[in-house]
């Protein structure tokens, strides 16, 4: 019996020690990068402040309740010869510990309500609705983001950068620590101006995604068939990184969000350069391409846009992602394959790429698949063929 007792009290000491270390760590970490970020928008600061208020309220309640309990565990032990009291209720105590939490909750509810209104129905200091300066449409795809600048007519895809994508493969032999911004870098980041009210419309093409940059202070789901709305106004120039936050299939962990926040002048210059690039793309869409050019461009498009599912080897990952090597569609009539790529396949993971990729990119990718691996079609799709089917 004695042995039992000493065992249990030494156990208690270990437990208390661990609890103390965790508690001290917890409060020290509030200042380090392991806590929620304060971010770079008004809203992210609000979210952080609310988080800290509630955290500290919980810490205080925890110290009081656990303190009483731990005191009791030492003071009210049988081994100290205590005989048990037999009381079993106290109306006063029960009223007190019902009313106090209610009061605390009401106190928390005020700032929380104000913050929600700020996010969902933004107004300025005089209570007027905030006017949005520009609108960007964000579309989630498996597994990339598409950004449409509705005011400027600029539009592009944003996918995981290739160095991360190579390093993340099993057996790549590359240490992720040697890759800059591993898994948090993209080929084309979203570019937005600083100090600007930006409306962000969110939707998705296939499954539900969620667009999240922690420094902006919120995430919002991108739901296929519906348009969600959010807004932000970033106060600080810089590059901010986040990730898709809603499970969206196998490469959910590999579709980062990167936003470059630049000065208003830099943004205007960037818009001009993008418009120039879009003109070049339009020329490409109207041109007649040689087979060699189509195949070399097609390989590039295929590896960045199609290979996550159908694999660079064309072997796919059946049954969800069928093989293209030897596929009846890829070796059959070319219009059928163009239709599949442009309109997608309902009820499968095959997305409609007609609105995602340019006509020249689709033509190139299709030409590549029909000439690659063991495929025997060996024919050519031109951008105008794609355009014809797209407009049919």
């Amino acid at each position, binding site marked *: 019996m004695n042995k*039992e007792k000493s065992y*249990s009290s030494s156990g208690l000491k*270990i*437990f208390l020690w661990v609890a103390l270390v965790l508690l001290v760590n917890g409060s020290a970490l509030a200042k380090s*990068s*392991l806590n*929620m*970020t304060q971010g770079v928008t008004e809203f992210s600061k609000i*979210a952080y402040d*609310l*988080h800290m208020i509630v*955290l500290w309220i*919980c810490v205080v309640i*925890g110290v009081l309740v656990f303190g009483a*309990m731990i005191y009791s*565990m030492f003071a*009210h*032990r*049988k081994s100290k010869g205590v005989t*048990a009291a*037999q*009381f*079993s*209720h*106290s109306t006063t*105590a*029960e009223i007190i510990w*019902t009313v106090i*939490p209610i009061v605390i*909750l009401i106190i*928390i*509810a005020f700032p*929380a*309500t104000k913050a*929600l209104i700020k996010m969902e129905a933004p107004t300025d200091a005089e209570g007027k609705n905030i006017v949005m300066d520009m609108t960007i449409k964000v579309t989630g795809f498996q597994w990339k983001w598409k950004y449409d600048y509705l005011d400027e007519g600029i539009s592009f895809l944003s996918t995981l950068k290739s160095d991360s994508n190579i390093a993340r493969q*099993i057996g790549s032999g590359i240490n992720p*620590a040697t890759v800059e911004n*591993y*898994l948090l870098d993209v080929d084309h980041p979203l570019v937005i101006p600083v100090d600007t009210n930006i409306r962000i419309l969110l939707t998705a093409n296939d499954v*539900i995604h*969620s667009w*999240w940059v*922690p420094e902006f202070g*919120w*995430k919002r*789901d991108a*739901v*296929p*068939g*519906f348009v*969600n*709305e959010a807004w932000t106004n970033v106060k600080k120039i810089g590059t901010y990184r*986040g990730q898709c*936050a809603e499970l969206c299939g*196998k490469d*959910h*962990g590999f579709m980062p969000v990167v936003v470059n926040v630049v000065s208003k002048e830099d943004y205007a210059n960037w818009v001009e350069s993008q418009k120039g690039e879009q003109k070049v793309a339009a020329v490409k869409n109207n041109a007649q391409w040689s087979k060699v050019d189509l195949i070399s461009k097609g390989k590039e498009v295929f590896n960045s846009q199609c290979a996550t599912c159908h694999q660079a080897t064309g072997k796919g990952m*059946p049954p*969800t992602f069928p093989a293209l090597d030897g596929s009846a569609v890829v070796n059959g009539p070319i219009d059928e394959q163009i239709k599949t790529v442009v309109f997608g396949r309902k*009820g499968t993971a095959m997305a409609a790429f007609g609105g995602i990729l340019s006509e020249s990119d689709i033509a190139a990718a299709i030409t590549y698949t029909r000439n690659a691996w063991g495929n025997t079609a060996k024919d050519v799709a031109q951008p105008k063929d794609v355009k014809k089917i797209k407009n049919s």
Partner: protein
Amino acid sequence: MSHAETHSHDHDHDHKPKGFVKRWLMTTNHKDIGTLYLIFSLTMFIFGGALAMIIRLELFQPGLQFVQPEFFNQLTTMHALIMVFGAVMPAFVGFANWMIPIMIGAPDMALPRMNNWSFWILPFAFTMLASTFFMDGGAPAAGWTLYPPLVLQGGHNLAFAVFAIHMLGISSIMGAINVIATIMNMRAPNMGYLKMPLFVWTWLITAFLLIAVMPVFAGAVTMLLTDHYFGTSFFNAAGGGDPVLFQHIFWFFGHPEVYIMILPSFGIISEIIPTFARKPLFGYVSMVYATAGIAFLSFIVWAHHMFSVGMPLGGELFFMYATFLISIPTGVKVFNWVSTMWKGSMTFETPMLWSIAFIILFTIGGFSGLMLAIAPADFQYHDTYFVVAHFHYVLVTGAVFAIIGGVYYWIPKWTGNMYSERLGKIHFWWSVISVNVLFFPQHFLGLAGMPRRIPDYSVQFANWNMWSSIGGFAFGLAQIFFCIIVWRTIKGKGTSKATDRVWEGAKGLEWFIPSPAPHHTFQDGAPVNDEHLAHVSSH
């Protein structure tokens, strides 16, 4: 002659059916069915735990080392489905079967044949669910929440998962009907509703939750099935449906479901604490009302799982306030447990240690729950490891700790042997330290921005993930040790014989029957005096 035979037969209370098939497959005995549930639950706990070990192995370091992302998603999905429906829920039904008839002085459950059926459905349902691992395209990989449209991409595993869910839903509903019928009809004379042990009360309320929400879940997954196979568009916007509709239906089931997994734990803790404090449960009546209050609130808070889905401001405010309210009855429970300990005469045998750890760690899970209820802050927390930490604190250090504590508390009654107190304490300290190393750092990961359900992560998350994995392996190993302790107790190795009373401070009818509990108890009715009961003494 024949009269004499019948007579002696009636008094042979411990006759058990001979042979494995008759004893176990065809059993209608509540104790044997309870044992089957508990063994099944432990098996699923180890299986679901093994899946978690692979998850933690992959997350030990950044970069993919062991599994492909699509298999990783299957692991997280199946880990959750198996732990929720295979380990935690059947464990509580096992406790209910074993203890409710004894605690209320009934000879058996009200519907013993249905009882047999509700158990024996389960192994088949889970065999079907687990078989999807070997199918083309693998197991379901859209998370245990089965959100469309993603889940509809999965191929034929969907049909298997849906039918498995139907079967275990039928099992749960039958189990719940049985619990309600037993408690309402078979209480011994003098066992009024407000004299029932709190474990019985929490289960009565849980049973109503089960009957209310399992059909909703069955309906939701059936709609997935028809969307996938019969061309309906419940959740397909292109056909006029709405993917978010599924989330509303799922969480209308899902939130009560999480209370289905915690209310019986409250019951177990409310039995253990008074025993080792040698003091009546504080605030018995308020405990009953708090349980009922939590059950009611569980129906009106579901959309707090969906703050980031894009709801109107009014909806967000309503679900935020309603969620706040849950902390009030939950707080009442915690305060009552602490007050039960206060001025008691405490000893710290293994069940008590698990219960104390439950109170502290479950409350930490409750704190993070309150934080998550703050909608504007949830825009940051949502779908991160902060959420993963939160629900593992309430489900592992909450539900699972209560289950383990309950096993230590009642196993002497079940087997007639005391478990080894030394091994039990080693198991406790090993588990309680490792579980915090496992889950506490996940709070930091979530706050620092690591989303949940990802197989690989940016290097800034490497340190805490490694700690979490180390804690995970240690915690997993501790539960293998638990299996050994249970095995040794059943076999009577290194243990002593249990007395009938088992614990000095124990009250309640189960402690007035022999240890091990005879195969049949209270065949001729139970004589219940108020002195038998834990909480009636000082009313």
